[in-house]
């Protein structure tokens, strides 16, 4: 764990105890069993708003506390441990980040306070196909005299079923596959011609598929200059990746803790299985991978807070290394628990499923290894 300020320690402790008392994995399971389209329990979400977590990234002038990314990461990690589902990440982290980095003053004044008080859920809509590839954006904006007509679709939009607004990446100019020519629009969920449909994923969260059938928006809904959103989109996505990294750390360290506990209690052949050296060494290797992953995950958030010029590298490192750890860890969670790990009644499967979805979001390990190498010029 990084060296924390007193305030950060307080918030982390609050998140730890709240999550285990009020949003334990059993709540997530209950929500999953009921089967909702929005993919979270409303009281859980209200409590988070209540505690002020929605304002962690937002400057005080817009009603937030401006505590920064590492602080938000601490909360995401604790929520990750319990698989607590909510729009906190999509709206108060990614949505707020996008508004802060790309929004006009009017947009910020209008949306940030409502993100903080929970009346709006603002989420980013970027991917369109099976792969995370912003340059492959095809959703088209036809522009004429201050009006823009959007046509196309988006997939795997986080909290898409509960969102009040979408931050939509669109193509203003150029061809699919080109990094240039992208714009970012704020589109209300009830806009004419916009429809959404729930996607039932293995992690039982509230993703949506969006369809834009000639949705009309105006210049006022444009974030930044038309056709030039590519760079700021990268910055937004990097912050999102670091946030996912933080949640993945939580999922992974909980999986490690469950596994370690099992190693200390499960008996086979007359001894607890953790006394078998092959398993002891495996635990040691997992611990090492976890500690290395933690360093990468926390460093990314710290680099963002420090506004360093190697945010991109740090965020790709985080997504890749935490992703690798979580991949191995979630598989070992099942393997070491044996038969019981295969049953739906036990929680291991929930962690495994969430792990794979988190790996996929905003570029998997392969994507970020490639990106890291490109950033290093090879």
């Amino acid at each position, binding site marked *: 764990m990084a060296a924390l300020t007193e305030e950060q320690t307080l918030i982390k402790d609050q998140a730890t105890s709240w999550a285990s008392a009020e949003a334990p994995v059993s709540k997530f399971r209950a929500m999953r069993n009921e089967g909702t389209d929005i993919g979270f329990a409303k009281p859980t979400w209200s409590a988070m708003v209540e505690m002020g977590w929605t304002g962690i990234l937002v400057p005080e002038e817009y009603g937030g506390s401006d505590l920064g990314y590492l602080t938000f990461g601490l909360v995401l990690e604790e929520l990750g441990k319990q698989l607590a589902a909510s729009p906190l990440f999509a709206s108060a982290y990614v949505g707020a980040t996008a508004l802060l980095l790309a929004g006009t003053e009017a947009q910020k004044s209008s949306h940030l306070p409502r993100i903080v008080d929970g009346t709006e859920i603002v989420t980013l809509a970027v991917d369109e196909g*099976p792969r995370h590839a912003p340059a492959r954006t095809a959703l088209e904006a036809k522009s004429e005299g201050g009006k823009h007509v959007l046509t196309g679709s988006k997939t795997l939009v986080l909290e898409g079923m509960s969102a009040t607004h979408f931050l939509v990446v669109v193509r203003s100019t150029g061809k699919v596959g080109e990094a240039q020519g992208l714009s970012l629009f704020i589109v209300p969920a009830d806009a004419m011609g916009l429809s959404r449909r729930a*996607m039932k994923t293995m992690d039982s969260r509230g993703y949506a598929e969006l369809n834009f059938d000639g949705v009309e928006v105006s210049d006022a809904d444009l974030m930044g200059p038309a056709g030039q959103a590519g760079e700021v989109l990268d910055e937004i996505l990097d912050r999102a990746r670091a946030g996912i990294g933080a949640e993945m750390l939580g999922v992974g360290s909980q999986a490690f803790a469950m596994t370690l506990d099992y190693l200390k209690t499960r008996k086979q052949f*007359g001894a607890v299985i953790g006394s*078998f050296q092959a398993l002891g060494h495996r635990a040691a290797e997992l611990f090492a991978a976890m500690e290395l992953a933690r360093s990468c995950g926390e460093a990314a958030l710290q680099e963002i807070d420090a506004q360093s010029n190697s945010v991109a590298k740090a965020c790709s490192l985080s997504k890749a290394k935490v992703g690798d750890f979580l991949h191995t860890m979630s598989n070992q969670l*099942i393997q070491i628990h*044996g*038969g019981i790990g295969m*049953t739906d009644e036990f929680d291991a499967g929930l962690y495994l499923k969430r792990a794979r979805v988190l790996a996929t979001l905003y570029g998997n390990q392969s994507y970020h290894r490639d990106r890291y190498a490109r950033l290093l010029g090879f």
Partner: protein
Amino acid sequence: MTAASDLDGFRSEVSEWVQSNFPSALKGFDLGADSPSDKGVSGEFRAWRQALADKGWGTPTWPKEYGGAGRSDPEAKVIRQEIAKAGAFNPIPPMTGMGVTMVGPTILEYGTDEQKAKHLPGIASGEVRWCLGLSEPNAGSDLASLSTKAVDEGDAFILNGQKIWTSGAHISQWCGAVVRTDPKAKKRDGISFVMLPMDQKGVETRLIKLISGASPFCETFFNEARADKSDLLGDLNDGWSVVKRLLQHERQSQTSAPAAVKIDQEPLQEQAKRYVGTLEDGTLADPDLRLRVVENLMDAEAHKLTVSRITAEAKGQVKVSAAASILKNSMTRVAQTKAELTLEMMGNQGIGWEGEQFSEEELRSVRDWLMGKAMSIYGGSAEIQNNIISKNILGLPETTQQG
């Protein structure tokens, strides 16, 4: 051995028979994931099963008197090949649960004549489904520490205890169970193997839902359940040797029919190209994924070549090649890695649970991936396999903790 020319003659005989007996309505029937239970099948299906059973070709190497055809291994292979060639299938093994693959061969070896006559024909005809009560909640990899008790009550044993991972227990008519008959003996010395009907008051089953959503296994509870003494297989308190043999049959069936690859299955690299696309030189657009795909394909080929090599080596040899010990882990690694790569290449489409945004192929890949995690756990976990290799094959000393 049968001379090659005899085999040719036999082959035409089988081919003709299958052609004229296999109902065309059953063509393309998927005998896959869910093995059919007697109740759900059609009249044609039943007729085909009965026709095969009458010839003894469901279990062709078994003796004729017990419902088999008394055929040699090469002849059995011909039957398998001709059935496959005609687009037909042999429904009898899956319809008997563990009957044809594990219980039958073990009864043939350990059973009395009475037991053979009582149990084998029902298996050979595909009419009696068997499950096996082996693992218990506290006896997984360490099977010998099982605690289900069987008490001698004159003409029967009375069973109390719980079994887990009893595959198909809820639809089986019979169960083969390992039980503790001498609680005072050392772990492996007080165990017996009994057979008992599932349809009795003292037996209850509960489906276990798995992480994949499927429920192929049960917990099975014995509460004063009865097993006739005449259904004790092997000697009293010598059940451990019966079980070892049973597990050998299991391993054999696992590794000799690896992963039941469907002939029409798209190769992994083609699937990858479809999802990921290619660069100008025709290579996969994601070189990182490409590397891992080619490694998996190489591992799959290496596994296949090893199976062939063991088969070739086995010709005329009594001892099974030491290399056979690695097959379970090798197959598991290939299959599990392939499942991971499949999800990875599908990306956003590889995380679906249900609904029309995901293709059938995508949803199945997710469920298969989850189900495949069991491969390294059941039937001797990856760790147990390594223990076996290190101790039995390489001759390294037993670790002192092992009981």
